């Protein structure tokens, strides 16, 4: 995944903002230095960020294979996209994989963070062990998971056989492919989210827990009445970042089942479909249109998630604990 997540700013108490001097006191050469210092970002963004966006809108109205002449086709690419069964399938696949990966992932992350937040030995060793999957090459991991989920000689099927259970053709069946991809996502991101949750938990005042204990609350009640409601902003953060990440899923399915998305295109995610159309079939105009389709879906789905998590939290806080 590319790094569009707006995470991380060190744990530094933000000092009152102080800037030296004022505009009037600055020499021309100093102003020039300042603009020079910030200019690389704007120059590169203009060339490789802003211009491509305008250009991709233009391209999406063209029929172009990347070599010959462009042919203006108006909205035809979009019309085709809306009636393209594989485009819709890629959306459904992406959402199914997102759903079966994100819910277990965030749940496990919360439980792990809750356990790590107790007075427990070896906490930093645990944190490192849980985070390692996240810094690993996705290509390497997709290869390893491919061998674990392999239809014939995979470790998982060997284990099922050893237990006298039916084996599953993981990489040939619609749900098998999705489960294998979701397993990779869960494996890679659970620890990451647990670290984020742990930081949030440590910001919750211990008096609240002590008061709950005095009132005789069970562990279960503490978890659902105190921990979850107070973590709401952090849960929102993780839901939004996993939404953005989940909508951009590419490497896992591409390495696991190939450019075509495997049997019946069951592993074709939205970005994999974009890649396939633009760079394998050389349909550059169509690829650009898919990019815009993807953009709209991402924005809508992020907003829906935002509202849902906010809404759920508000109801929770009205009932009991207030953040």
């Amino acid at each position: 995944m590319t790094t569009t997540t707006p995470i991380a700013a060190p744990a530094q108490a933000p000092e009152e903002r102080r800037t030296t001097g004022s505009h009037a006191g600055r020499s021309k050469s100093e102003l020039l230095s300042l603009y020079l210092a910030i200019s690389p970002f704007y120059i590169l963004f203009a060339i490789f960020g802003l211009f491509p966006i305008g250009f991709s809108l233009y391209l999406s109205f063209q029929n172009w294979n990347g070599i010959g002449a462009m042919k203006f086709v108006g909205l035809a690419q979009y019309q085709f996209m809306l009636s393209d069964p594989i485009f819709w399938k890629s959306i459904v696949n992406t959402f199914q994989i997102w759903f079966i990966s994100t819910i277990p992932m965030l749940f496990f992350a919360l439980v792990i963070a809750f356990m790590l937040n107790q007075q427990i030995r070896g906490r930093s060793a645990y944190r490192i062990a849980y985070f390692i999957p996240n810094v690993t090459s996705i290509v390497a991991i997709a290869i390893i998971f491919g061998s674990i989920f392999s239809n014939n000689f995979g470790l998982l099927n060997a284990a099922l056989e050893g237990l006298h259970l039916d084996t599953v053709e993981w990489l040939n069946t619609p749900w098998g492919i999705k489960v294998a991809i979701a397993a990779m996502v869960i494996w890679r991101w659970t620890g990451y989210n647990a670290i984020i949750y742990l930081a949030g938990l440590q910001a919750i005042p211990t008096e609240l827990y002590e008061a709950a204990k005095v009132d005789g609350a069970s562990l279960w009640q503490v978890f659902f009445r105190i921990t979850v409601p107070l973590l709401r902003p952090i849960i929102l953060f993780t839901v939004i970042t996993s939404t953005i990440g989940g909508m951009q899923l590419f490497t896992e399915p591409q390495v696991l089942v190939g450019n075509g998305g495997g049997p019946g295109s069951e592993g074709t995610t939205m970005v994999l479909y974009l890649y396939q159309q633009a760079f394998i079939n050389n349909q550059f105009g169509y690829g650009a249109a898919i990019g815009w389709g993807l953009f709209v879906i991402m924005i809508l789905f992020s907003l829906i998630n935002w509202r849902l998590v906010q809404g759920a939290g508000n109801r929770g806080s009205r009932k009991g604990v207030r953040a």
Partner: protein
Amino acid sequence: MNAVAARRVWSVVTHVLLLLGVAVSIFPFYWMFVMASRTTQDIFKFPPELLPGTHLLENFHKVFDSVNLLGSTANTIFVAVVTTVLVLFFDSIAAFAFAKFDFPAKNLLFVVLLVTFMIPSQLSTVPSFVIMANFGWVGSFQALIVPGAVNAFGIFLLRQYAQGAVSAELLDAARIDGCNFWRQYWHVAVPLLRPALAFLGIFTFINAWNDYFWPLVVLIDPGRQTLQVALSQLNGLYNTDYSMVMAGTLLAVIPLIIVFFLGARQFLADLAAGAVKQ
């Protein structure tokens, strides 16, 4: 059962559950090592061999004979190191200017920078490729390095940090001593920003090392591949020789684990702090 005993039981249960999670987290690495150290015939045995074998070096040799893994590793190191150095430099000068100085249109420019966060890279993938083709950069490392040489994420991160860490008094003192902007940056800001730079450096290096989509699109020449692309091809080409493929994946993962361990504690703390602040 008294309270102390209950507490002890709970602590044991917690550790057992946590260790189970660690086992899941570590197992794929172990399994990769098992397969990389065995012959492919071993891998296809039933029941499978669960312990490491003795063919690791032999498999490494086969990898080096099959694909240009050494070359693609060198390419990846080059791209990741140059990208990291450029990001650290360009991000930190911009962050320092934004954090500690005033200039016309500063706030507007910073808002523009934050808005660019929201744009997904997939939107501009196709045109970016066309631009690279027009520059004659397809198949070259500039195509990987230049677009990622400065980013909004790092500028935002370092600015937040610099606001607290670089004191106005120190900068004033430096000014009175006749330091211009660049000398203040180099002699005052850079030393104070070191922890944040370390975090951003590790983060950038790991991401550059792991990047797959864009190198796959833009590096067509087999002699100029990065490790991740070479690895995926090794997987595609030699689908049956699992042990060799696993030896290759092992080689692709080890450097990252080393880089991560070098700064793990600080890295995790910074990462978590950032999310909580949001």
